[in-house]
């Protein structure tokens, strides 16, 4: 799997611009209905250019684009498919880890601004490291992905270094 280290995605744009309905659903789901997420006047009153998306909204903006392969359908007959389609959403090649349990190990986030309603977010991601470690529950693969979020490369929004932990299912 080491051949994936350093592999970088192409620049990938979110399937839709940031739109008010998505922001409303997101804010309600995270239980943070800050008016700056919905009201231009309230946002401007806090020094923002207009209503914005919650700070981590860009991370969840990369969904399956219309007309692209639907893994949920394609793998519906696979009882071991855990439903996760994360890496492909960031334009990275899938790692050969079918059958392993994938857990979110954590993140390092650097936030420079909020995404604004109406703008289209792009990303570029890379496999920063892939290592193996012996744990009390057996071998574990640790995958670190670095992702930059921006509208144009000179207009960064945030950078995220996220860690996934992969291990065999427990008996």
């Amino acid at each position, binding site marked *: 799997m080491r051949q994936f280290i350093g592999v970088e995605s192409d620049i990938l744009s979110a399937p839709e611009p940031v739109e008010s309905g998505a922001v409303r659903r997101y804010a309600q789901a995270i239980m943070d209905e*800050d008016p700056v997420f919905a009201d231009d006047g309230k946002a401007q009153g806090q020094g923002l250019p207009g209503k914005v998306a919650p700070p981590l909204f860009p*991370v*969840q903006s990369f969904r*399956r684009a219309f007309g692209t392969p639907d893994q949920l359908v394609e793998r519906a007959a696979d009882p071991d498919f855990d439903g996760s389609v994360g890496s492909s959403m960031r334009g990275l090649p899938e790692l050969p880890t079918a059958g392993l349990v994938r857990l979110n*190990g*954590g993140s390092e*986030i*650097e*936030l420079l601004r909020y995404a604004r309603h109406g703008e289209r977010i792009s990303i570029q991601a890379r496999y920063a490291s892939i290592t193996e470690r012996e744990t009390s529950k057996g071998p574990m693969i640790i995958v670190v992905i670095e992702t930059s979020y921006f509208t144009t490369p000179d207009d960064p929004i945030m950078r995220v270094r996220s860690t996934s932990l992969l291990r065999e299912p427990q008996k």
Partner: protein
Amino acid sequence: MNRRTFESVEIGDELSLTRGPLTEPIMMRWSANMENWHRIHYDRKFALEHEKLPDLLVNGSFKQQFIMTMLRKWAGAEGWVWKVKFQFRAMNLVGETLQVWARVADKKREADYGLIELELGIKNNDGKESTPGTALVALPYKDGARVRYPFVPPKIKSDK
């Protein structure tokens, strides 16, 4: 809302946010919202029998929202949550109420704003820590302007 400034913050100051109980509908709403179909968050049979987990897991992506909400509310409109770092070291299960916490660990002066270093985490009903981490929050000086937006990271090495 009172303006939080670098000078108004003391090392040892604490902040907190409670989220929960995180029921199945609340967790399902988050998974559906982010179109995350990882079954360990909503398919109990798969979680228990296939993945051998004790129950449905609260998404790490969900927990990090609570950390960010707590820090943003604390920083106020004139501050900025610049960096957040955390590890998901233990599971949080459906039905738990999470206590998100942070404590001011250090303060550093920069040219245009002050940086507040915080230790943080998330504890469950039993006080078990699941998400240790740190954060850097920029706050304006008492007699200074709000932290510039978009945020401009410090360019020079900071002095306490």
